[in-house]
């Protein structure tokens, strides 16, 4: 087997996934047309769904800075979890080799985040009243 063929064959599962995804999406749409009951339609019902916000209007609506603050904090601590999962997966194998490193690096990471948390708390980032 040539190298190029080999490399491409590695991506076969991805191709299958793609096909399944397209088939699923198309299939559900088709199914709902075939099986579903057609309801009444209105202007509102036909507009795109945009997280509960009005999709039509001025683009630069002003939001409270709190939204952004919370969003950023959410992302920060969300990322923490993103790192924690793979860490947890390899923890067992790594702990056998260098237990100090694998534990220490995560503790350091958490410590820095904790200081960040303290900072945010003390600066009143979680205080909704202001």
């Amino acid at each position, binding site marked *: 087997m040539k190298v190029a063929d080999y490399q491409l064959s590695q991506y076969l599962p991805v191709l299958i996934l793609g096909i399944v995804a397209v088939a699923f999406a198309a299939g559900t749409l088709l199914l709902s047309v075939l099986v579903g009951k057609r309801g009444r339609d209105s202007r509102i019902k036909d507009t795109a769904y945009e997280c509960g916000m009005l999709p039509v209007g001025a683009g630069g609506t002003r939001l409270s800075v709190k939204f952004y603050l919370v969003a950023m904090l959410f992302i920060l601590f969300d990322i923490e979890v993103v790192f924690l999962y793979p860490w947890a997966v390899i923890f067992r194998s790594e702990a056998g080799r*260098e237990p*100090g*490193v694998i534990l220490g690096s995560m503790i350091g990471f958490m410590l*820095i985040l904790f*200081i960040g948390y*303290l*900072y945010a708390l*003390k*600066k009143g980032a979680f205080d909704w009243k202001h």
Partner: protein
Amino acid sequence: MNLSLLTLELGVIGLALALLLIDLWTPPALTGRLGLAAAIGLLLILALSWNMSGGPPVVGCGGMFARDGLALFFKRLFLAVGVLVVLMGVEYRERLALGFGEFNVILLIALAGMMFAASANDFVLLFVAMELMSVSFYVLVSFQRSRLPSLEAGVKYLILSALAAAFLVFGIALIFGVGNTTNFAALNAEGVRLAQDKLYWLGLLMVLLGLAFKIAAFPLQMWAPDVYQGAPTPVTALLAIGSKAAGFVLLLRVLFVAAPVLAAHWSKLLMLASAVTILYGNLCAIPQRNLKRLLGYSSIANAGYLLLGVAAVNASGAAAVLYYLAGYLFTLAAAFLVICVVMRDNEDIGALAGLSRRSPLLAGALALAMVSLAGVPPLAGFLGKFLLFRALIERGAAESPESFRSYWLAGVAVIGVVISLYYYFAVIRVMYWAKDPPDLSPIIVPARVQIPLAVCLVAMIYLGVMPGAVLAGATEAVKALKF
């Protein structure tokens, strides 16, 4: 993994975190003290670095982190810049509107990024260190958020830095794709084989482009004047000295640790970049009226001079780069300290009028800094340029000693130096004999400025007159590189 390798970096980061926490419980009136505390902390870490000198080079953290003479030389450089810039920040405090505590913390984190860069032995660490610097600088440059030029500078820096980072990542991806590793030592071991692959060349070229942004060299030098002018003065100083030095240590490592095989072929390319950078910086600096902007162009020109040492592709060239940077550090720090004190709301050169009578110390310091930048003996700038020219001419002589063509770049560089005299002397002229200076009120220079200024002046003269010790250090440091 050996944490003791990272002592200095951990020290700086620890200092930053500690400051962040202490600042939370410090009343606003006392935050100035925090700046002084940061400076003292950095000084202690600097002192600690002498404890680490000597010993064989060590590579740790999975081959990513090198602790050798080169790294140590640059770390000391960065720590010294750090001390000076933090003190500058204390002087600049009331102009920062708010967040002086955070300002110091981010400064320290940028500094940690530079220190990691000094030790980078792997493209991953290189990238992370650079981003640590860049992200910190995005915030620092636009720190005066009620001042439009600062914001403008911040946006410009953000966009162009992102562009440079894109080049860098693309280059690293190509290198990894071809070499299957990002480790410098491993790439060097495979150097001859990899050099067959054009993609590897392209990858390294992209990396060099990314680094050219950091050092403000052609073709990615455009941002420097705008950003230097807009950023708060201490940040400009850190950009001009620290960020540039970090770019150069990475450049040296990439060229002479990861790819010495290719570096020899790129001498001409680097020479060309250097010549264009020198001429561009010096010619554009002539009509400038804003001193920080002028120093921005001058910093481009200086990046060009420093590139001469890299383009020489020999040990004396690299040592000259180190030496020049050391001299450049104290020279520019002195200049920015004076700017910090004198130019409160007007950065036009005209604002310096009558400075010789308002404060002889400040005028003398700025004059000496300008003379040193112009490369007039017996100051640090002269010896640095001398060493760079020597390395370059050695390179030319190695190719063909008799033909003048091997020395053309030295000619271009020398023309640049002559041009630079014109605008540096213009600054001195204004300070000493501007006609009818509008303001002659004496300036009181606080001790926290006097002391670092004195240190800078002494260092400038010391490096110019007694270069032995530092030059020996630089020569020793570049033994980590291969030519």
